[in-house]
């Protein structure tokens, strides 16, 4: 079975599948990123996370992010998978692979992609910690916000 470049679902993430999916003879580098569930957050001892998403919109947003990355770093191939449901400490919630002819573009596109996921992907963490639970609310999602996009580019190229 071929691995789609973009996906969201409950299945455990396999980074090697993403790395294979972005492969190509013209690429000299693949840069990858795994986001993991951490056992602490804001002074709380985290037990586990439950991720929720508006899946059809999330896939549209992943397409948008891949398109933005191609526009900014032509020739880059991006794979982006996000997981939903209950995730235990140490499990991967997001996996990204960016393939490019030269390493600089791959590093930048990979960083850009995770920054944009955090800004505009319709996905939420429900944190269950020792003593309670809380929905984590981060960025106000606005894909047209040029300032946010510029900030993601700035971080990616720092």
């Amino acid at each position: 079975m071929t691995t789609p470049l973009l996906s969201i679902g409950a299945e455990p993430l396999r980074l090697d599948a993403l790395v294979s999916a972005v492969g190509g003879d013209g690429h000299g580098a693949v840069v990858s990123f795994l986001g993991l569930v951490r056992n602490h957050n804001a002074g709380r001892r985290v037990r586990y996370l439950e991720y929720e998403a508006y899946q059809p919109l999330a896939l549209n947003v992943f397409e948008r992010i891949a398109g933005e990355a191609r526009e900014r770093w032509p020739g880059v191939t991006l794979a982006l998978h996000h997981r939903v449901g209950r995730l235990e400490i140490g499990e991967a919630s997001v996996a990204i692979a960016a393939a490019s002819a030269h390493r600089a573009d791959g590093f930048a596109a990979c960083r850009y992609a995770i920054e944009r996921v955090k800004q505009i992907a319709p996905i939420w963490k429900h944190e269950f910690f020792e003593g309670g639970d809380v929905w984590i609310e981060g960025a106000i999602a606005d894909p047209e916000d040029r300032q946010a996009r510029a900030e993601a580019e700035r971080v990616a190229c720092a």
Partner: protein
Amino acid sequence: MRVTVRLFARLRDIAGAAELARDVAPGATIAVVWAGLAREYPEFGAYERSISSAVNADYARMDHEVREGDEIAFLPPVSGG
């Protein structure tokens, strides 16, 4: 006309439902749908300035006019990754 409302994360918890059906007047915007919900669920008021919205799984502005059968989603600030 009738629209479907999708709610996520804390909004879903507040309303106690992931999906609602609501009747709105022809010409109503997303903002009108939101205002109706904010009257029903006062706790939604805290999200007045931070809510994002989508129509049929595409981001849309609050002044977007809704149509019969549309799926309107309200999204609190996101925390993926």
